[in-house]
């Protein structure tokens, strides 16, 4: 068994719940705000929640580094995939 101290799962749950409520509130309050503020804030909150789930519920924080490298390399490839798609529209066409 992986010998690590078990995180406080209920504390993580309450954080996730609070951030979800914050997200919905943020989307209502900043509905008319400029898109970068709306999208940046919401993506930041969602990324924070996703990170908590991966690190504590999926125990990635307590796993071997090799597993972390496998997951990180996938995220890098995913980021490249999305960046290329966005770049298609952001960069000027020849």
């Amino acid at each position: 068994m992986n010998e690590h101290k078990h995180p406080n799962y209920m504390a993580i749950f309450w954080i996730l719940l609070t951030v979800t409520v914050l997200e919905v509130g943020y989307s209502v309050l900043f509905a008319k705000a400029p898109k970068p503020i709306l999208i940046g804030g919401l993506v930041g909150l969602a990324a924070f929640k996703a990170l908590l789930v991966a690190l504590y519920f999926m125990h990635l924080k307590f796993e071997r580094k090799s597993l972390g490298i496998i997951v990180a390399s996938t995220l890098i490839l995913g980021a490249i995939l999305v960046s290329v798609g966005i770049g298609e529209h952001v960069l000027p066409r020849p």
Partner: protein
Amino acid sequence: MTDHATAHDHALEPPSATGIPHDKLGMWVFLCSEVMFFTGLIGAYIVLRFASPSWPHPGNTLNIWLTALNTFILICSSVTMVKALESVRNADLRKLKLFLSMTLLLGAIFLSIQFYEYRHLLHAGFNPHVSLFGSVFYTTTGFHGFHVFCGVVCMAFVTGKAFLGKYTPAHHQGVETIGLYWHFVDLVWIILFTIIYLF
């Protein structure tokens, strides 16, 4: 992340070259392929959305509060799942069965609410072919729903095995493996809820 996570839960299985149990590593590799699958869908959504001259506000079509409730249910199911794993590690098999059953029930409730949402939207005329937003909405949430459905089926299998007394503190990799999948499905929903429903 610890470097010295040496021993693992599989006392009965031969050690793997990586030090990670084979089924757990297999699930992680599978989840990595799933990351790329959902990244493709999310990437397509982002490209289509920003290439469109106009995009409807999701709140005008979708029921944000109902989906927020569904998000809450899926987060609860992740907690019950991780508590099930903790229970079997602590040799509390009664709680293992309880938490697995709760996870199964919460997964089924999530799917039921999604089915209700689809039914309501389709009755209101919001079809996959009505707009680009409709296509993207049904494609991404539909594929996610299919993943939840597969998770519920597997969870039913694991819960059945738990009731048959197949898991012990020394041998419970099945619980951990389905747990990884379940948390991943929750993680993907966290992203989808934000980008599909809240922007």
